[in-house]
């Protein structure tokens, strides 16, 4: 069970409130898109789910995020375990300045897999999963920076999948990519949704409409509307949502 229950989530940066009373339940499996204009808190929201906001000293989080009935912000929770179960892919491809192989092997290694054969298996499986294996299998020892932007982003996805997370968060993963690379990532997202709970932040409404099962609309730090993607885009209940998706605001 890897649904994400968010209860009364409030986030502040430097005393300025970035998220206000967010309540929502992201169902298991499938793709949930988070949309909204710049500065609406969508990135802050997704970064709360794997506690990436923790590394920002001025950030304060209140409320609960429950996965598996356990509060990720509970007192006894080990943040590295949270991030092990909840993978993340960032806006700009950010491979390590290491070889393709080492990029994937990095996380399994720090989590205790030392056996070379096992690592080889993980690397191959992850790269296949991210639809990159055929393109790189002959040059695993080459620098990840030799890859194109789209390949780098798929490498980052493979890297996140290498430790078998249950939830994968995507923070605008295509905003630095060209349309062809974007299409490949979107295909990949759809493939992943049977196995993983996928949450994707996007500024691209067409992208949300294309890939997401559910869509949430954020505005000024609040969750305005959350529902079935088709319904949200065709018959939005809230006027703000309607204004945004019809382009009258944003």
């Amino acid at each position, binding site marked *: 069970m890897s649904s994400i229950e968010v209860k009364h989530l409030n986030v502040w940066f430097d005393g300025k409130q970035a998220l206000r009373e967010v309540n929502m339940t992201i169902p298991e499996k499938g793709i949930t898109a988070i949309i909204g204009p710049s500065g609406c808190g969508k990135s802050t929201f997704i970064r709360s789910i*794997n506690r*990436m906001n923790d*590394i920002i*000293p001025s950030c304060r989080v209140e409320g609960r995020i429950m996965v598996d009935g356990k509060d990720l912000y509970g007192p006894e929770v080990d943040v*590295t*375990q*949270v*991030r*092990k179960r909840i*993978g*993340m892919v*960032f806006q*700009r491809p*950010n*491979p*390590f*300045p*290491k070889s393709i192989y080492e990029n994937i092997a*990095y*996380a399994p290694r*720090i*989590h205790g897999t030392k056996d070379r054969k096992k690592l080889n298996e993980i690397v191959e499986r992850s790269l296949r999963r991210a639809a990159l294996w055929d393109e790189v299998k002959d040059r695993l020892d080459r620098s990840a*920076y030799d890859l194109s932007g789209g390949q780098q982003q798929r490498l*980052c996805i493979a*890297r*996140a999948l290498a*430790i078998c997370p249950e939830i994968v968060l995507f923070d605008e993963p295509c905003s630095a990519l060209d349309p062809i690379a974007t299409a490949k990532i979107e295909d990949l997202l759809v493939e992943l949704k049977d196995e993983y709970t996928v949450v994707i932040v996007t500024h691209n409404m067409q992208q949300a409409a294309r890939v997401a099962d559910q869509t949430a609309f954020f505005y000024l730090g609040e969750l305005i509307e959350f529902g079935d993607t088709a319904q949200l885009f065709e018959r939005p209940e809230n006027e703000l949502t309607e204004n945004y998706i019809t382009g009258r605001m944003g």
Partner: protein
Amino acid sequence: MKYIDKIGWLNRTQGQSKGRFFDGASHTVLFTITLISASVLVAVAAFLILGSLQAFNVIGPVEMLFGDTWRPTSFHNPAFGMLPLMAGTFLVSFLASIIAIPIGLGCTIYLAEIAHPRIRAFLKPAIELLAGIPSVVYGLFAMLILQGWVAQLFGLQHGYVALNGGLILAVMMVPIMVSLAEDAISAVPLELREASYALGATRWETMRSVVLPAAMSGILAAIILSIMRAVGETMAVLMAFNQTPLPTLDPFSGVQTMTATIAIEMGEAAVGGLHYSALFAVGVMLFMITLVMNTVANRIMLRYSEAYR
């Protein structure tokens, strides 16, 4: 060209040709200035080499480089073997390096990764300020205070030994190393750290396996530049221990460095004499050492710029 001339809006305006004049003039002026600076390097090298020719001719390069006695002022039996001087420079710089490198790296990692931003904002400028203190002040401290501590700690009659010089040079090396190495670590993009944290890595794992490797060439360059500072330092070394040109690597002995030799003996050597020329030869050697280290540092820096983007 004719075609362009027909189109009025492509022609130069009055203001633009004025701008072009200044563009051209500033180019010439700046180029000349740069050329002068660069030619100073050639002039210095030529000056040293020309001055040292006599010594290399009379004494012979092998005897100069590998002779184990430096006794330039002896009337009956002068000797100009540079080995003791090179040993002195090596010993003092080596002692300084093995003390300064761990301390410097420790400070760097603390400042770059562990310290609260507010503490860093205070500490880093403070450490960088240390780099600006004139070396004679460090020398004074070594001569008057550090020397006593060294004598007491190791039960010596006095502390005017190579180790004292190594210690004060270490104090001088740390600020340079910390300043440069911290820059290298801070330059590692936040995205790389985030990628590592998001995979469930701890701060320490991220530091060790992502940040340090990415900054490694910059850190190595920082170390080399600070060693160069130790090799080239004259005044503090001169004041820290007894200048005795012995071919030894004993940290509790007095030694004599190459820089100190030139500083001490140039005043008493007869202009145009053999001793005078031999000091130029010492200068040539120092110049070579600096050149090699600088080249190595540059090579490393070049690699560093390719480490990530």
